[in-house]
């Protein structure tokens, strides 16, 4: 069993439309099966409202499935007694950097998680230093988070999760509110954690260049997982992706059009370099 496994997970929520009326049952997640192996870099794509955030919250026991079961490192998230263990194993980084930093000094914020799980004082200091070094924020340890850039704030948030020594980090559109530079910084930090520390990464994103690096991509639509595979497999199906209202990288789109027009190149081209090579070879 992988680090995160879901079996037929369904999540219903009640939607109150008008006063006094019976609430309507809406399905945000609809029969999701997942099996994520430890150490992988996973990307989850999907149009707005497709249930990505809802699924992410399940992986951290912030939400519990209405039907079906979700296991984090073999622990059932519906089991009340294991909630804190699960949240320690599967850390979560959210979209808005301002709304997830609790401390008023960078190092105090990073220490917040370890404090909550009862780590002894000396070890907290070690972990904080370690986590800030890994995310490249050690020189800002005494700074106020308010004065950092968006990318730096997100790296502090990541450090806050890293300090809890999780096996898995779930990032829900961590770069959505950042400029291109901030996006690069955050992504580099995440990749380093994945490659050097072997932390499983589950990245929810709208940016295709972030998806290309993933080991595996899941595409969600109306609460279901509708596509899965390597980035190349996914991006070779341009028409299906368009059906799910997803952006396709421009190179991939161009390559696809060229292919349709009869140029002899492989499908699922992801980078400009690849396209150049393919074009050179096709002649």
């Amino acid at each position, binding site marked *: 069993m992988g680090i995160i496994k879901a079996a037929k997970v369904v999540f219903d929520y009640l939607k109150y439309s008008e006063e006094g009326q019976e609430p309507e049952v809406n399905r945000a997640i609809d029969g999701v099966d997942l099996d994520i192996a430890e150490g992988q870099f996973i990307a989850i794509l999907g149009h707005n409202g497709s249930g990505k955030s809802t699924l992410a919250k399940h992986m951290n026991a912030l939400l519990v499935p209405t039907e079906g079961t979700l296991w984090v490192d073999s622990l059932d998230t519906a089991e009340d007694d294991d909630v*804190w263990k699960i949240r320690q194993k599967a850390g979560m980084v959210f979209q808005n950097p301002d709304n997830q930093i609790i401390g*008023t000094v960078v190092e105090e914020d990073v220490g917040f998680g370890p404090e909550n799980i009862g780590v002894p004082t000396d070890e907290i200091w070690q972990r904080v230093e370690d986590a800030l070094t890994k995310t490249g924020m050690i020189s800002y340890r005494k700074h106020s988070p308010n004065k950092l850039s968006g990318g730096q704030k997100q790296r502090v948030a990541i450090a806050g999760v890293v300090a809890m020594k999780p096996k898995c980090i779930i990032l829900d559109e961590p770069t959505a509110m950042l400029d291109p530079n901030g996006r690069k910084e955050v992504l580099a930090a995440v990749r380093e954690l994945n490659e050097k520390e072997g932390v499983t990464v589950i990245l929810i994103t709208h940016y295709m260049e972030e998806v290309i690096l993933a080991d595996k991509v899941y595409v969600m639509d109306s609460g279901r997982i509708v596509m899965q595979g390597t980035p190349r497999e996914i991006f070779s199906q341009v028409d299906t992706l368009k059906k799910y209202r997803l952006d396709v990288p421009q190179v991939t789109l161009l390559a696809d059009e060229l292919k349709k027009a009869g140029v002899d190149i492989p499908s699922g081209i992801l980078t400009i370099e690849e396209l150049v090579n393919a074009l050179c070879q096709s002649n």
Partner: protein
Amino acid sequence: MLRDITIGQYYPAKSVLHRLDPRVKFVGTLVYIISLFIFNSWIGYLISALFLAVMVKISTVPLKFIVKGLKAIVVLLLISMFFNAIFTPGHVVFQVWIIKITEEGLILAAKIGIRLILLIIGASLMTLTTTPNQLTDGLERLMKPLNKIHVPVHEIAMLMSIALRFIPILMEETDKIMKAQIARGADFESGNLIRKVKNMVPLLVPLFISAFRRANDLAMAMEARCYHGGDGRTQMKPLIYKKRDAAAYAVLALYLAIAIAMRVIGI
């Protein structure tokens, strides 16, 4: 304008004052406030002003930064001084219509003004030199005995520290919304009081909505990081008294003793 409020903001530096135990600073601030009400003479005020000046000097927080925080209370200050000046009976200095300004009133107003200014500077010096986290740790430890009578001490402390952390963020947001609406022709300056209050509505609504959303997000982020109240929680920076804290307590005791002694012998 809103950014000028420095109460509740932390000014990072490495002074002795910054390194003191927050409990000392909290008790110190309390002692200082009490002393302001014990002192009742110009000499007394001079002593408390000097004491504060020395503390500010030690803190290495630039005076400009502290004075900026006073701007926010100027109105409050003027109002309380004004009412003290006109409602104190005594020797009339001059009279406009039925408003009598008395000598006693003027003196009282000046005293109130001095007290308030010193009080605000004193209190903001505490928050400027103590991170909200330390401050709440300190409060939590000081109030711990109240836990026995079921006061949720840890929760109150956490609540305060979060409020303090979000003050600057909400200020900035207010500023932003204000500017956005001024750019669309909103007017927050002119008109009478009722008009002004009415004009604030389009400012407050988005502010409240965003504050609620933030609170929601933050609660989730805290839960995701295993926050579950004070039980079983350890501390990254546990409070341990050092020698300098004992020295600071001694200075405070001396200061308070002087205040009381002066009051007793009537200077």
